[in-house]
């Protein structure tokens, strides 16, 4: 239907179609860029975490892994590798040492790399190879314990292996943090010859997988039903909970930002459509008098919209892609690794957003347009009202749907929609009252003040609508600023520079003093010593855990595994009492675990500590600052309950890179003490947090720019009337300054009220977001109360004056002609 396009091309000159196109482009490009960027960040986190896992996915088993599992993985073109870990005695000359040994197949690790060195206690270089057949790599600690060096032989069972490297970091070691324990790696091919694995040995078998997401998902679906209770499917995100937490919050933020972008582009789309429809009503009526049938007009506009969608979506997707590339390249200097390429398949999100927003914001209005009676050409002054409830309802439902699609959930969209509805009601009430009041203060038109306020009142409905749009945009901005600053502050506080990065375990009473001497000599800051025993919760209020969770599924963490327990009379650093009495003769429980296990003060727990059964009531609930990296415990017992048990002690300390070697050397004289180095993980978290903070600032900036554009569009949508009025005023002899003053007052007042209401809304929303989405504590944001009205007045007046500068420049004659 070439007529449709001819008409469309002619229409482009009027600028209305361009406004619509611009809205579409903004909507598609913001959603696309944020969507793609989130995808890249997620991929990047997954990769970084995969380094910790040494693979993309992992199956852990206590039995030998069936060969067909690996075959199936290979069939799906997944990379595979195997690791078998066990504890065994290693011999060298007349020294012997119980060690953690892992045998790995060629190709291990699939992700990440070994760090090895030729120097004892060296810092290590990356190695993507594994020990060759007949070779073994040993940790510096094991080497010093066995008194061996490179080139020496060690015996593992019946096999003799040659030491070729000192092992510094072992990717995918069984604890999420690398224990500086006696440890060694050998080639899988030598395993059989050792004869150390006999029926009944405690061995952990792992099958590592790497490959594209689709194949991994397919494999997961295939394997899951075959896993028994001693076998686990592991993903990178399950490990390193702290990283997961950080990433989770950042994702929530980016999703929130994206959702707000969806809302903003929805508003932009609705504004542009309304403007388009308003300006085309008379045209459609005229076309009808010329004999255009509704069917023809329907086809005409549908084709136009469709063409517009195709063009807008292409441009939007292109810009979106470019924008996220720019964000990524701006960040690349700050990132330790390059971001993975975004998945092209994510582009559909932007396209779908464009399509849906056209359908919900444009089509209903367009159908209105087509229904206009041709009679209106005879009654030039009839006003065509577009305030149909159905149009708003469709728009709202559409926006909600879009947000759900975008966030893949209901919570965030529900909070946002409730907020927007609330704000709409509020604006209607407050705005009406305020303008009503303004009117009574303004009669006559002698000053810019009076003209400005009077014109606010005169266009009550359009102004209220504009107030709503301003309020919404400012509110969204404030929410983002609020969330961003609390998020980043939270993170920074979470991980101080000198957070402890090493733990000392298994320290005996009599070793404490010697170790204290060593660390003070090295000038290391160390936390207090905590006594520690291991115990397992066996019953809750006299019901056994087994009877509560017979399937061993969905068990709260508290019952799932053996816990580290301590006893203390005083609340440690980083702990805060929430409820109850810490000094009472009972258990003190950490709040989150308590919530998960649905426990409260008064509930009785039975704990098995090395065969001794203790039953105690819960008498207090604590929060624990896990970020403090101090030794922390889910359960703290009263001193009396554990005093007689043989305990060992635990402490944490910060060791910087320069001191690491001397510290490890000093600790080599305490063979029984386990050292856990969490420095790598900490560093990784710090890098990720750095990246995220930057990313969030940039995304915020993008959204704010989009917001400013929406504001501009909104001001433009009432421009015609303002231009006409300004021209009339000037024809009537008003000086330019007076007109400018009037505009300033009008926009300033709109901006102030919008800012004020937005602040109230933002504060309420932040409350909901903090509590429900970010699982943080609610807090008050005094800064927003300053920022809101200020942004309102400054930004809105600036944009308003900028948009209507033509009112002041163009000769009034020209304006009156054109209208």
């Amino acid at each position: 239907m070439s007529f449709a396009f001819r008409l469309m091309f002619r229409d482009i000159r009027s600028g209305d179609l361009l406004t619509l196109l611009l809205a579409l482009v903004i909507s598609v490009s913001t959603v696309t860029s944020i969507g793609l960027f989130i995808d890249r960040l997620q991929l990047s986190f997954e990769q970084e975490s995969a380094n910790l896992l040494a693979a993309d996915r992992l199956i852990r088993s206590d039995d030998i892994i069936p060969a067909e599992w690996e075959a199936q993985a290979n069939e799906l073109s997944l990379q595979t590798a195997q690791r078998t870990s066990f504890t065994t005695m290693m011999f060298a000359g007349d020294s012997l040492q119980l060690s953690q040994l892992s045998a790995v197949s060629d190709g291990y690790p699939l992700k990440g790399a070994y760090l090895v060195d030729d120097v004892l206690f060296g810092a290590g270089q990356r190695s993507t190879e594994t020990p060759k057949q007949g070779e073994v790599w040993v940790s510096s600690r094991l080497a010093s314990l066995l008194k061996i060096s490179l080139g020496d032989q060690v015996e593992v069972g019946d096999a003799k292996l040659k030491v070729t490297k000192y092992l510094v970091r072992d990717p995918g070691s069984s604890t999420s943090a690398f224990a500086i324990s006696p440890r060694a790696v050998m080639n899988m091919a030598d395993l059989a010859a050792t004869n150390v694995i006999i029926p009944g040995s405690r061995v952990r078998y792992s099958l590592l997988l790497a490959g594209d997401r689709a194949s991994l998902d397919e494999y997961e679906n295939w394997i899951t039903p075959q896993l028994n209770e001693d076998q686990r499917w592991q993903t990178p995100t399950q490990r390193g909970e702290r990283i997961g937490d950080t990433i989770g919050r950042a994702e929530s933020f980016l999703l929130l930002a994206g959702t707000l972008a969806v809302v903003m582009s929805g508003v932009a789309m609705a504004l542009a459509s309304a403007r388009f429809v308003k300006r085309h009503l008379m045209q459609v009526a005229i076309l009808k008098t010329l004999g255009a049938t509704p069917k023809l007009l329907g086809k005409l506009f549908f084709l136009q919209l469709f063409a517009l969608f195709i063009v807008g979506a292409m441009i939007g997707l292109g810009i979106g892609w470019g924008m996220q590339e720019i964000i990524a390249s701006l960040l690349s200097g700050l990132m330790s690794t390059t971001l993975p390429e975004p998945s092209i398949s994510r582009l559909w999100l932007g396209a779908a957003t464009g399509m849906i927003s056209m359908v919900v914001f444009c089509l209903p209005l367009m159908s209105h347009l087509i229904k206009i009676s041709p009679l209106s050409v005879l009654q030039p002054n009839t006003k065509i009202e577009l305030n149909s409830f159905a149009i708003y309802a469709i728009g709202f439902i559409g926006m909600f749907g879009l947000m759900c699609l975008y966030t893949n959930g209901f919570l965030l969209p529900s909070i946002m929609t409730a907020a927007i509805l609330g704000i709409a009601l509020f604006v209607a009430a407050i705005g009406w009252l305020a303008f009503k009041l303004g009117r009574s203060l303004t009669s006559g038109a002698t000053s810019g003040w009076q003209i400005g306020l009077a014109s606010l009142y005169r266009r009550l409905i359009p102004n209220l609508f504009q107030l709503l749009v301003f309020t919404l945009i400012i509110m969204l901005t404030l929410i983002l600023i609020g969330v961003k600053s609390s998020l980043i502050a939270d993170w920074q506080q979470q991980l101080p520079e000198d957070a402890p990065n090493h733990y000392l375990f298994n320290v005996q009473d009599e070793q404490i003093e010697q170790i204290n001497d060593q660390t003070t000599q090295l000038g290391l800051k160390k936390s207090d010593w905590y006594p520690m025993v291991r115990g397992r919760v066996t019953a809750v209020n006299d019901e056994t855990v087994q009877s509560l969770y017979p399937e061993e599924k969905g068990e709260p963490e508290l019952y799932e595994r053996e816990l580290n327990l301590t006893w203390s009379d005083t609340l440690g650093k980083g702990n805060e009492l929430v409820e109850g009495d810490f000094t009472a003769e009972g258990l003190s429980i950490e709040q989150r675990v308590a919530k998960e296990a649905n426990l409260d003060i008064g509930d009785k727990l039975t704990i098995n500590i090395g065969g001794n059964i203790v039953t105690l009531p819960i008498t207090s609930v604590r929060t624990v600052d896990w970020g403090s990296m101090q030794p922390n415990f889910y359960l703290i017992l009263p001193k009396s309950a554990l005093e007689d048990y043989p305990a060992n002690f635990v402490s944490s300390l910060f060791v910087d890179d320069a001191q690491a070697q001397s510290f490890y050397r000093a600790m080599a004289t305490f063979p029984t003490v386990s050292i856990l180095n969490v420095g790598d993980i900490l560093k990784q978290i710090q890098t990720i947090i750095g990246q995220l903070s930057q990313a969030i600032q940039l995304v915020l900036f993008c959204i704010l720019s989009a917001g400013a554009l929406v504001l501009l569009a909104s001001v433009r949508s009432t421009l015609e009337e303002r231009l006409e009025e300004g021209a009339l005023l000037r024809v009537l002899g008003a000086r330019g300054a007076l007109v400018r003053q009037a505009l300033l007052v009008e926009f300033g007042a709109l901006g102030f009220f919008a800012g004020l209401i937005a602040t109230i809304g933002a504060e309420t929303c932040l409350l909901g977001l903090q509590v429900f989405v970010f699982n943080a504590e609610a807090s008050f944001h005094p800064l927003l109360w300053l920022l809101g009205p200020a942004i309102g007045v400054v930004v809105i007046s600036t944009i308003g004056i900028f948009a209507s500068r033509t009112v002041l420049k163009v000769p009034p004659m020209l304006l009156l002609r054109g209208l």
Partner: protein
Amino acid sequence: MARNTAIKVSNLTHTVTSNTGNLTILKGINMEIKESESVAIVGSSGSGKSTLLGLLAGLDVNTSGDIFLYDQEFSSPSEEQRALVRGQYVGFVFQSFHLLPSLQAIENVMLPAELKGDKDARKKAEALLEKVGLSHRLTHYPNQLSGGEQQRVAIARAFASNPKILFADEPTGNLDEENGKLIIKLLFDLNQSQGTTLVMVTHDNELAKMCDRQLVMSAGQLTEKSL
């Protein structure tokens, strides 16, 4: 000469609902207009002239009674149907011109032919604009034209579809005397040369007198003005 009946109206009433209740604007109108006749409808403001014109042109649906254009029932409730008849038989000229502001003069005139899928739209439009004396302003936009010029473009557009009936609602209402005369001359010339039936609402007595017949609208009733 026994001319065909172009428009036949019987017992036409029209009632609208407004916020103050029902308002009957037209109260039983009967009339007949022959082919290529020129008819003026006069009457005081608010008497219902525009409403009648709108109904005759099928821009709205009457409440009761019948309208026939060339013996075709024209009070069909289907907007689709009426639009088709309108495109075929009817041309329109308005007091406030109603050109599409985003289209050039020539494009405005091309519209009716284009709507019918006519390939020669541009040529015909050029010829028509030439006839109304605007061949030098083809690519100008409405806001670059004076009121009189705009109305001439509107007349060219109205004749672009070769209408059998031309409705005009106060075509000179917004124009000065000189321009008004020019427009009137154009209308009557085209009326004569193409045999178009002309139905015109006007407050201008001079103009009314130039028509074959004058009908007076008063409080929703139509009467013939005896000459």
